[in-house]
């Protein structure tokens, strides 16, 4: 499988993520995206570096199993299935996502990056994923969907990191992975506290904490 194909699939999952309202499906899509991205370095033929192989496998394991496990458990405990009434509707989100992707394709060529990367879709896809993650974070109300947005955001950063993968030390990559895991873990705890405190996981209630 060519890496460009995987990257294109990633971009498609972005659209699906933005358009879905069911939380289980959003988690599923985030898992698919994470695994796809975990496979990209292998498809790029970087499997010969042992440290890249290890990090890619760890990424697949964390994003494909550990994080969705935590999130599904939270969803089960909280008994929520759907994101209803988001700040930005699903249709508008889809259009914004399309606009963001288009903008990323435009901008990617004017970024002062190292010229001559063999994968022309890599930078635009990274930016588009970043943008999608932000969009989900901003537009959704439920804390759990916001965690999904955070995951997508991290995926974008990971994709961007692939650009430099051969120079990037293993420490940085494992750092990003650990950061992601801790982020989800902490947000899981926060979600639970929001629920206990406000009897709901709607993040609007957090505004009451303002002084």
């Amino acid at each position, binding site marked *: 499988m060519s890496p460009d194909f995987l990257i294109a699939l990633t971009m498609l999952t972005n659209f699906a993520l933005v358009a879905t309202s069911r939380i289980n499906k959003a988690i599923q899509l985030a898992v698919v995206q994470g695994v796809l991205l975990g496979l990209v370095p292998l498809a790029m033929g970087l499997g010969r570096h042992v440290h890249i192989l290890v990090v890619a496998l760890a990424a697949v394991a964390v994003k494909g199993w550990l994080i969705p496990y935590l999130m599904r458990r939270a969803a089960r405990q909280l008994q929520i299935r759907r994101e209803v009434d988001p700040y930005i509707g699903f249709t508008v989100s889809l259009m914004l996502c399309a606009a963001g992707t288009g903008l990323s394709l435009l901008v990617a060529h004017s970024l002062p990056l190292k010229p001559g990367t063999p994968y022309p879709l890599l930078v635009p896809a990274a*930016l588009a994923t970043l943008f999608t993650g932000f*969009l989900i974070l901003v537009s959704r109300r439920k804390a759990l969907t916001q965690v999904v947005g955070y995951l997508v955001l991290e995926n974008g950063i990971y994709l961007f990191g692939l650009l430099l993968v051969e120079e990037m030390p293993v420490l940085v990559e494992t750092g990003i992975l650990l950061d992601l895991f801790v982020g989800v873990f902490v947000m899981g705890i926060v979600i639970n506290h929001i629920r206990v405190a406000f009897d709901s996981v709607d*993040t609007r209630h957090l505004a009451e904490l303002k002084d």
Partner: protein
Amino acid sequence: MHMLDLILVLSSIGAWAVSGLMSLGGGWKARLGTGLGVLGSLAAGVGAIRALAGAPPATLNVHLWGLPVRFELDALSAAFLVPLHLIGGLGLLYGREYWPEDLPKGAGRTLRFFYGTIIASMSLVFVVRQGILFLVVWELMAVSAFFLVSTEHERADVRRAGWVYLVSTHLGTLALTAMVILLGHRLGGFPWAPLRGASPAAVDGWILLLAFLGFGFKAGVFPLHFWLPGAHASAPSHVSAILSAVMLKTGIYGLLRVSSLLPAIPRGIGGTLLALGAFTAVFGIGNALAQRDYKRLLAYSSIENLGVIAMGVGLGWTGRATHDPWLVALGFGGALFHVWNHAVFKGLLFFGAGSVLHATGTRDMEVLGGLAARMPRTAWWIFPGVLAVAALPPFNAFLSEWFLYRGLFAALQRGYPWSAVVALVALALTGGLAAVAFARFYAVLFLGQPRSAAGQHAHDPSGVMLAPMAALAILCLALGLGSLLLLPMLDRVVAVIAPGAKPMLVSGMGRDLAWITGLEVLLLLLGGLALAWIRRSPRPDPALAPPTWDCGYAAGTTRMQYTGSSFADGWSVHLPGVRSHMRRIKGLFPKPLRFRTEVQDAMGDLLVAPRMAALAERLLWFRRLQPGFLSVYLLYVLLTLLGVFLWMLLRAQVLG
């Protein structure tokens, strides 16, 4: 060999930092920390005095985070390190009893920690010769002082004083940052070394202006002084001593150091500083007269003394601008001598005020009185400080003001009339008002009879607190009588401040000081003889002696004494910040009335505070940007990101 002095000073800085850290532990660690601090002060004192006594400047060049950094110990640094470590070491001892470590209120350990950091960072301020590192240690000092001032942060007025101080010091640092950048351009790099032989440039004026703004905030020169009384009054007394006796002087040090790097001083700037210092001095002592809180009184007196020092610096700058070595010597020499003197007597006065506060628990002088009978040792040891601050011979401050009088008359003869006339009048007025203010301070606190129960059962502190006061009191007299020995040191310091100026103090002032010292010794001898002659007659039986200030009334009460406010009434009513509250007396048989006065700072409380409140009201608008929704904050990030992208996209078109 002279490198040893710098190494002594640097190791003392390390000792103080470790001493602060150890004090966090408590118990034997805290005692070891105190020992380390005292050792550090001794080491730095030895190093600095050797540098003052004629050792050549010692320089150490190192690389820190890839930047070249210079440490240097020259006479100017040493001149400020000596008072710092004198008051710092004595204050550490004093604080052992004044603020015991295991006190339930306040945090004794954090107080000791920041006491260590402030001494260490201030010592670094005096030896670092590199712009960036200077700013870093300057901030470290300022922040340590903030924590020290807000030691009793459970009280609202202390918190407010701390915040006002923090904002002021950061405004000053803002100006200093700009100054360091400009100076870096002028010197061609951040390490500070005097520019020799360069021609004056327009940027010099800007550097000096920014330095004045930044360092003036620290020194408390008139429009920038408003943080000072609150901060000094709120801090624990041995900390007030450090703040007043040394930290304010870092501002003066900064002005002197920066001006010494420049090849020439623009004309006019010296005269302006002279006039401003004169105004500051009169303003400070005028406000000191009106205070009820005796620590605020001392703080305003610090403003006055810093004004006097600023006058000296202004006179010296005038001398540099007109290439007049005599004015340079008298101005800078007088300023430096006053820096030492003020450090000694103000340290003493704050230690004394701390003893009174320790014994009575109140800072309001109107409820005290008659403490001389109850705290005789404190009253005895603080008395030289009171005489010194009033600039009376044979104590030290008389001589530094003598330098300034000589310099101002010399300036008058050379035809810089306006600033010199203003300064002469102000200096004379300041001396007179200081005598009144401190007569009031001493009389209301220590003489007469107690005005309330607060001072009834006061008693002297133990030797741990008295010994530092005694040392400083003796030093007040010793500096006054031994001033001849100090002249060569002052000459060396002036040579650093004004590179290339001839040393003139030894030859020019030697005869003056010899005469004055001779007269003073004679007067002291005569006074001692007179005292012995009076004591010769047998003392009356104390049981028969009437109460103090009984004045023959049949049934006098303690309320019939002069109060502090009534004593100062003739002078202080004309101050802009004094408000009297009393209802009109109506009818033939008026009801009992209450009379109350309050003093506000004309600059800080009346001018700055209302405007700051109005500004804060306006800035509330920005609260709308803070709705409290996580999504909105993320949206801000997203919009910024998009903005950056668009800029990338359009950059080529916009910039062409």
